[in-house]
């Protein structure tokens, strides 16, 4: 089944060799790495390492150019080494080749020899690694750098009692753990490499750009005299292995182990360390082992539900598979992007044994694979969990298979440098993550799963499997049969379908008009300041002019003519429609008589609803929006400053109680009349945000049609001016919660009280009569002025007149600056020479400027200034935004004109 295409890698499950070398060199003390190749390689690698380790990562590049590629890069590399030494004063430099250097056949050893020859005093140790990107992955690159290090450092063969530990690519935290274990056994050791400090540094008052920690060269020199080597990698080829190199050249015996993850591979390391140190395994470690065993038992039943896809470097895959298998988590995919044919042989028996126990039919071991294949296999084999680096996140995102990030690189989470997987403790940390990820799925979904599987008494609406339509259907039927009063050409369903606020589809095509006829309000919400009538804010309760019912009717007719898709007329304030009921009634009657097909809607705070609900229905109002922010007077008391009812002003809970009681009985009356009721709720963070669901439940039970949970629009001067505003995400989370109970409106645009048009294009400005003009002391010119501007970017006056090859033409009229056009001219000045020809050029430019009153430029010479001014074109030099510069220049011209006229 594996698609694994031969010629195409889709979504690589690997990186390239230089990435591995860069990581390895970061574990050497006072070492810098330079990549011999083009600039991008080092930058990409730095970027990837920086996000994983959250540390500054400095890697140099010889920045090969076309020339270096053709004639050889020796010069570049030597300059690179010199510069690197100047900037960082390293003791060691790792020179890694790249695809490019290897392809053009650079002889690095030779170049380094030349470097030392021409820099006889230089003591820096230069270590070259052949690491063409096409020669292997970061996994091979890492070991290859280590092998290059041990084979280039001058070895001291004197025997001593130290052991060598050569690690695979493990995290800084795991490296520290490893050192701690070695210390517990009281062993003298040389750890190669040691990136525990350089890539997970402590915060210090002074920062050193040169990595100060890691394995020093003086230690590496002693590796040839060690009594043994432990290599924590059992999948690298012998001829790439640094341990094998030390054995073959210096006779240091070696043992290769799997990465110590899981019980058995950690046991192997501990036993070996015990043997080498001739000490029993320390009590602390024995206890850790015991706790891991205990943890394995605790979680075994949950773990059996896991079908895990493991991907990454071969060492990691082998040990992770073994950890999963011993815990009964079935790896259905074990995949590496490296070419590692021996992977199968190392894990096949484990997998097949567990598969038999759990009756798992199928699993795959994939070698030299890409993520396209892993993705397809994960779906085919039903993986419910992934383990590896963050490159699996696209599969997680696409198919919802959770990914546990525990290998390099991790780009989308913090803490890559602190990942723990080694030893009994690390294994426990990893196992807990695996188990908890499984538990999260189970715990989070079992109610829903069981309900959907077994509940069969009615529509399965609780988790949205089937739409809940009954309640609303009842309302619609009722209306159809019992409203003889107003003959309606459209049924209420049609009206609802055509109403832009109630139907998302209609919001795209149908227009609505809000009539600002209701100035007064009978309650004071803490989020509202009614004294400001701002023509430029778009939010409920804001409008420019209050219209009389007659004027509103005239306006309706005018708009209907120009906007034929006008289907809805609403009254939304700016106060409360029912606090101004006389006006509301009058306007609705007038329009209804003129056009019985219009859908009327009214929005209200609901205070007066019990008194007018029936009449509204009679007037043909089919939709009413009631703003209900709370169904608990204690919460309501925080939202409403006061309520004016029957000639009294109520405060606090008393006010909120009256309002609530009236809202609920009013809504009930409306629904009995067959009116569609929408509930608006303003989200007030910290006040009613957790209460909204309760509001929605309550109104749903009464038979409301839709709920609109809105964000707060903070208004300056209101009591809630400083209240935290809910984010879209928070609003949508609340809507999602409420959506379980009642249909939610996701497309609300929070219209102005005099909005006209479709929801997303308010064209009311076009119909407004008295647009407020800001009064200022600027002189308004009877005639327009025209300016030519020199600008490089078209944003600023930022160009020398002589350098301009085009002019931006702006007009100034009524204190407004308008971009007119761009005019192409020849450059007036093309350098120091050919000044004789300038005469002709400036002539051409003058022609291009002959309709201009002024020119605005950053700098200009004397000669062109004189020529321009002789033509009556004023010259202004400035450095400013174009719009501002034009205004300033225009004012100057106008003022001087006034002066000359003697009026100033």
């Amino acid at each position, binding site marked *: 089944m594996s698609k694994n295409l031969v010629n195409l890698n889709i979504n690589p499950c690997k990186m390239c060799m230089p990435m591995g070398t860069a990581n390895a060199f970061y574990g050497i003390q006072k070492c810098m790495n330079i990549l011999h190749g083009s600039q991008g390689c080092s930058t990409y690698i730095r970027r990837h390492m920086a996000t994983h380790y959250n540390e500054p990562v400095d890697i140099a590049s010889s920045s090969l150019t076309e020339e270096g590629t053709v004639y050889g890069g020796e010069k*570049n590399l030597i300059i690179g080494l010199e510069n690197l030494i100047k900037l960082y004063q390293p003791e060691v430099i790792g020179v890694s080749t790249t695809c490019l250097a290897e392809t053009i056949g650079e002889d690095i050893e030779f170049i380094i020899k030349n470097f030392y020859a021409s820099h006889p005093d230089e003591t820096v140790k230069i270590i070259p690694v052949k690491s063409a990107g096409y020669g292997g992955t970061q996994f091979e690159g890492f070991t290859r750098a280590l092998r290059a290090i041990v084979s280039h450092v001058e070895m001291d063969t004197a025997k001593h009692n130290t052991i060598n530990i050569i690690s695979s690519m493990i995290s800084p935290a795991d490296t520290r753990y490893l050192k701690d274990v070695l210390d517990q056994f009281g062993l003298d050791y040389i750890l190669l490499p040691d990136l525990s400090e350089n890539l997970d540094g402590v915060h210090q008052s002074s920062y050193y750009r040169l990595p100060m920690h890691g394995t020093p060269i003086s230690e590496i020199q002693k590796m040839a005299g060690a009594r043994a080597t432990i290599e924590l990698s059992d999948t690298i080829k012998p001829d790439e292995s640094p341990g094998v190199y030390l054995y073959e050249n210096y006779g240091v015996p070696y043992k290769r182990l799997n990465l110590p993850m899981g019980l058995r591979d950690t046991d192997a390391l501990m036993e070996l360390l015990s043997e080498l140190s001739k000490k029993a395994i320390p009590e602390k470690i024995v206890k850790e082992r015991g706790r891991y065993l205990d943890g394995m038992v605790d979680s075994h039943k949950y773990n059996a539900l896991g079908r895990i896809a493991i991907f990454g470097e071969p060492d990691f895959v082998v040990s992770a598979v073994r950890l999963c298998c011993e815990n009964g988590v079935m790896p259905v995919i074990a995949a590496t992007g490296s070419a590692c044919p021996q992977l199968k042989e190392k894990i096949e028996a484990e997998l097949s044994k567990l598969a038999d126990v759990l009756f798992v039919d199928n699993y795959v071991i994939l070698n030299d694979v890409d993520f396209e294949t892993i993705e397809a296999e994960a779906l085919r084999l039903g993986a419910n969990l992934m383990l590896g680096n963050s490159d699996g996140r696209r599969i997680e995102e696409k198919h919802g298979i959770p990914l546990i990030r525990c290998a390099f690189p991790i780009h989308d989470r913090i803490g890559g440098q602190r990942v723990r997987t080694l030893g009994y403790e690390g294994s426990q940390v990893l196992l807990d993550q695996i188990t908890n990820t499984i538990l999260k799925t189970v715990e989070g979904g079992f109610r829903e799963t069981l309900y959907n599987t077994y509940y069969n008494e009615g529509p399965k609406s609780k988790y949205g499997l089937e739409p809940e339509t009954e309640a609303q259907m009842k309302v619609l039927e009722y209306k159809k049969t019992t409203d003889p009063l107003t003959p309606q050409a459209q049924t209420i369903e049609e009206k609802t379908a055509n109403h832009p606020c109630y139907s998302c589809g209609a919001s795209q095509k149908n227009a609505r008009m809000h009539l600002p006829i209701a100035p007064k309000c009978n309650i004071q919400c803490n989020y509202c300041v009614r004294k400001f009538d701002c023509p430029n804010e778009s939010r409920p309760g804001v409008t420019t002019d209050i219209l009389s019912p007659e004027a509103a009717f005239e306006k309706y007719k005018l708009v209907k003519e120009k906007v034929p898709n006008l289907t809805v007329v609403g009254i939304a304030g700016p106060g409360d429609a029912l606090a101004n009921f006389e006006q509301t009634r009058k306007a609705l009657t007038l329009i209804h008589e003129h056009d019985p097909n219009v859908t009327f809607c009214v929005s209200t705070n609901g205070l007066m609803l019990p008194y007018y609900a029936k009449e509204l229905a009679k007037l043909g109002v089919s939709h009413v929006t009631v703003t209900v922010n709370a169904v608990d007077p204690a919460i309501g008391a925080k939202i409403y400053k006061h309520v004016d009812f029957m000639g009294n002003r109520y405060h606090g809970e008393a006010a909120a109680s009256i309002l609530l009681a009236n809202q609920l009985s009013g809504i009930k009356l409306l629904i009995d009349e067959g009116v569609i009721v929408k509930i608006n709720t303003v989200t007030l963070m910290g006040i009613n945000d957790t209460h909204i669901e309760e509001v929605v439940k309550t109104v749903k039970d009464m038979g409301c049609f839709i709920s609109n949970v809105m964000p707060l629009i903070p208004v300056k001067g209101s009591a809630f001016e400083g209240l935290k505003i809910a984010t879209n995400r928070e609003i949508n989370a609340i809507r999602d919660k409420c959506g379980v109970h009642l249909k939610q409106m996701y497309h609300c645009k929070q219209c102005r009280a005099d909005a006209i048009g479709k929801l997303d294009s308010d064209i009311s400005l076009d119909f407004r009569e008295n647009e407020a003009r800001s009064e200022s002391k600027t002189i308004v010119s009877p005639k327009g002025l025209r300016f030519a501007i020199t600008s490089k970017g078209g944003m600023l006056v930022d160009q020398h007149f002589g350098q301009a090859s085009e002019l931006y033409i702006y007009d100034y009229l009524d204190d407004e600056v308008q971009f007119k056009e761009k005019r192409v001219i020849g450059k007036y000045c093309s350098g120091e020479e050919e000044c004789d020809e300038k005469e002709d050029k400036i002539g051409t430019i003058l022609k291009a400027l002959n309709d201009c009153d002024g020119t605005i430029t950053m700098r200009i010479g004397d000669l062109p200034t004189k020529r321009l001014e002789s033509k009556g074109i004023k010259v202004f030099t400035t450095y400013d935004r174009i719009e501002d510069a034009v205004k300033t220049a225009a004012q100057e011209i106008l003022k001087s004109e006034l002066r000359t006229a003697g009026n100033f």
Partner: protein
Amino acid sequence: MKNDAAILPERAQSIRFSECSGDGIKCESASVSGAVSQRACVYCGARVVLNPITDAFHLVHGPIGCASYTWDIRGSLSSGEEGYRNSYSTDLRETDVIFGGEKKLVAAIDEIMASHAPKVIFIYATCIVGVIGDDIDAVCRNAEAKYGIRVIAVKSPGFSGTKKTGYKMACNAIMSLVTPDVLPEKTCGVNILGDFNLAGEMWIIKNYLRRIGVEVVANITGDAKVEDLKQAPTAQLNLVQCAGSMTYLAKQMEEAFSIPFIKVSFFGVTDTSDSLMRIAYAVGDKDVIKRAKAFIEEEKNRVIPLLNKYRKNLEGKKAAIYVGGGFKAISLIRQFHEFGMNTVMVGTQTGSKDDYEVISHLVDEDAVILDDANPAELEAFMKEMGADILVGGVKERPLAYKLGVAFCDHNHERKHPLAGYEGTLNFASEINLSMNSPVWEIIGGINNV
């Protein structure tokens, strides 16, 4: 503090310490070997510009690294297809390098065509393809003949210039894609050039244009679809946002399709408002102008009070900037200015001479200006100038943190929009929350002990 140790002699001309350190800044040149430049390469430049085209396939011809490191690299969003988020590579190996990669490339195209129906495939030629001499033009020609779709070569070997060369290669590829046989009639729409829909910014800009009644023909390249791109020649006007990458394309389009262009910026309240007005006037429709004015007023009234809240926390602080292009650096300096903040260090990877001249006018005389800086310089000057926050990309973030400097990610991996009015609020919020985080009090306390 002396910075001699941090500045290589070859780099001195690319750094301006003060007004009197000479005329102009050395820029648009190759990086200095061994200097630890923050720049990427030609291929990267080409890929970041083309990658947001959502229904295009991006096949990287070369060894695996280039495809691996640029897989889904930009946070550019799509309203439709997600194919562009995959990374296709011919994954060249040792033998391919010896015997040539052409066959593998041909076969790779066949494999893509066998399982997908791409509208266009971009073939990126990386470093070694430039060296081993694969004739990718011929491969593309044959593939076009065989499958009847566009297969466009993007020659972007890393060594063939800077990231900016890559932008040009990408612009050429776009021109090749959109150039029609016969010039179509103009419509009243505009194209948006140089927004990559990072965190939905293209959508924000399009919402604004919709509000003021300006139609958009093609988005180049954020959330772009091939069919929409092909309509680009019908536009009456090009709006150029990212000037560094797209002026080249705008000029070509001006010449070939007679579409004039204006430059716009949607970073900061003033730039956004000015740009909208400029667009409205350029379109020239009275209603559009009227709506633009109303919309800008409305947005300003909404946003400025909120910004003023932040302002008191930001005023008087010092900002350092190190970003990719000059356009962004200039926008950022202005935004900081709006917050009452002073920019004390500013550098770019690919800024032009013109950009640096503008920058030098915008900042104080003693501000440091850098082209193609390295970590040593960034460290030295951030310390010397006492920067409170650095705006940069992910590589610069850990350095800032090590130095105890706050950080704002203005790179293509950001997850919240920084453009438009809402973006300005996000930007102010991010600056505030990083710069005024309680951790600095503690860190500062430790350092002072």
